[in-house]
């Protein structure tokens, strides 16, 4: 495995077994996360971006289950150099518990997902340390205060005693980031962390995440539907549609030479701040198909302006490399 790679996901399939049928939430997705870099994962609701993240942490909610595929985690610290296949582990495996929180941690759109409402912020942050590093009990309070200060929480000595609901939305988000970074993980998964925030608070939180990244040299998997935030944060981008990764590239290539018709249409459809012409937006026609009834072939063919009958609706397009580090899963680019 390339030493610069932290996480290598190959042909991941995660299914949800519902009474109505099987939802293939992640349907053969492959992507890599490089050490110390930010991978932006972008897609509309139901594209499988969150379930991919949950699969990495083995926290896929029932009735979901990782069906097949590999999630390789590369650990290199001092003499230690090993690769763990997360899909081989049970969700309750002690190694998996160790990975969660200390190697990979996650933040959410709604901070109260991470916090218990009946314990103070300080207690919950301390618990994170004590759980993973039982010997470091005495220094925990000081480390908590230090971390709260680093994430920009005003008056940490007082706010350490606060309950999560007593903090404002932006401060709660900062406290959640503090908790996620307490053990200096090598990967932070951020699932729409700023979607519920106002633009001014969003800008503050994104700046904080960038600062913490350069301080701790961690990789970030940034999940969002907002292409503006992707442009702001990501080094590399994976675009997902109906459980598949349809395009992967460095961020500039994603915005300046998008290849997949879905990505091209998505970029066209965002309203931009520019001179008003009264013109209509270039909307993508139709809706995302029912996940219980995914069309054969390319998942996008029903809405695609470049649809080729007999090809797109029959064969799943393979990944085609169009440039260095730039792959696209579309028949327009196959030989």
């Amino acid at each position, binding site marked *: 495995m390339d030493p610069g790679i932290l996480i290598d996901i190959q042909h991941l399939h995660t299914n949800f077994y519902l009474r109505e049928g099987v939802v293939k939430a992640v349907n053969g997705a492959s992507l890599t996360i490089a050490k110390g870099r930010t991978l932006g994962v972008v897609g509309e609701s139901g594209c499988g971006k969150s379930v991919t993240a949950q699969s990495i942490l083995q926290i896929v909610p029932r009735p979901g289950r990782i069906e097949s595929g590999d999630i390789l985690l590369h650990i290199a610290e001092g003499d230690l150099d090993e690769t763990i296949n997360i899909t081989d582990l049970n969700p309750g495996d002690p190694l998996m518990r160790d990975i969660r929180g200390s190697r990979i941690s996650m933040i959410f759109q709604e901070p109260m997902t991470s916090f218990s409402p009946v314990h103070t912020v300080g207690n919950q942050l301390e618990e994170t340390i004590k759980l993973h590093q039982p010997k470091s009990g005495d220094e925990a309070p000081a480390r908590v205060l230090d971390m709260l200060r680093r994430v920009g929480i005003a008056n940490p000595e007082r706010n350490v005693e606060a309950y999560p609901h007593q903090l*404002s939305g932006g401060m709660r988000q900062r406290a959640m980031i503090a908790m996620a970074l307490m053990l200096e993980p090598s990967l932070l998964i951020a699932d729409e962390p700023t979607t519920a925030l106002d633009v*001014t608070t969003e800008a503050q939180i994104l700046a904080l995440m960038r600062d913490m990244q350069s301080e701790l040299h961690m990789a970030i998997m940034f999940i969002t539907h907002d*292409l503006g935030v992707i*442009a702001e944060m990501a080094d590399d981008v994976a675009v997902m549609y109906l459980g598949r990764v349809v395009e992967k590239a460095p961020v500039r290539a994603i915005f300046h030479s998008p290849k997949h018709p879905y990505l091209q249409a998505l970029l066209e459809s*965002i*309203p931009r701040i*520019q001179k008003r012409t009264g013109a209509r*937006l270039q909307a993508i026609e139709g809706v995302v198909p029912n996940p219980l009834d995914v069309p054969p072939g390319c998942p996008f063919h029903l809405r695609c302006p470049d649809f080729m009958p007999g090809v797109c609706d029959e064969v799943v397009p393979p990944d085609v490399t169009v440039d260095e580090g730039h792959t696209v899963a579309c028949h327009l680019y196959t030989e």
Partner: protein
Amino acid sequence: MDGHELGELDSQQETGRDGPAEELLKVVDLCKHFPIQAGFWRRIVGYVRAVDGVSFALHRGETFGLVGESGCGKTTTGRSILRAIEPTSGQILFKDQELGWVDVAALDEGDLRVFRRHTQMVFQDPYSSLNPRMTLLELIGEPLLNNGVRDAAARTDRVAELLSLVGLRPEYIRRYPHAFSGGQRQRVGIARALALNPQFVVCDEPVSALDVSIQAQTLNLLQDLQEAFGLTYLFVAHQLNVVAHICDRVGVMYVGKLVEVAETETLYSSPLHPYTEALLGAVPHPDPDHRGHRTLLAGEIANPASPPSGCYFHPRCPYAEDECSREEPELRELQPGHFVKCHLAEELQLVGVDLEV
């Protein structure tokens, strides 16, 4: 600002437009103060000044945007105008085609029912705004039934017509909301709002909960319907790119007050209020070459229950001077049609967005 002044200002605005735009709605000094109750006796210990003296006018056929951070009072303003929430004080003047100017804030229950035919609302969340136990026929037909369309066949015809108008297949008429995606539900919400041929629609964050590709479809639909029926929209939203696309004029709110009003392009390219500048500076651009250009506004939005002295924005304002913490500025018309509530508006050279990019 009293009603008299407002009228004068609007006549000036009209000269800058393509043709004389008739006024449809004038909001004068609208206030909504929510009481804060405490203790066993639920004594009132203070007020949240959600909307605090807001005045503006809407022209027939235009889209007026209200933007601002959460808690700034933009949604409360929209709802108070429809009297979905009872305003504390102020006038809401609506131009009725037969009766002339009517103060909606002073209407009694019976007259309010009649007025409500002319005004409707499209909600943010298409999941919670539709009753899951009602079919599309019942949902969209309900306002028709309540307003005297008793004949079931006529109602069915009208609902089918409305469905095709918003781009849904009329065959879906007997289905329930759960069978539809978020974008389709929002279309149902729009069809319901249009059932009685309203003149004025408050769109409260109508695309915020939708996916990007569905947002575009919904915005296009709203524009098509506006052209077809001459609708006037009050468009409440926090996404500045969406507002830039759809609105003719925009008002910026901060802690219950309007701080700037202007035509959309003017507001975005040459803002006069530091808060507008900060909001525009915080918008993420969908272009990685633009990275790092976001300005960071320090601090958090003021508490509307105990706002700061003087200009509410002064604790966060990078340009604030002594005067700003002492005295509250007036909303003044600095350029024709461009209103700003800032002591320093003449002196500051604020940066907007380059619209040519």
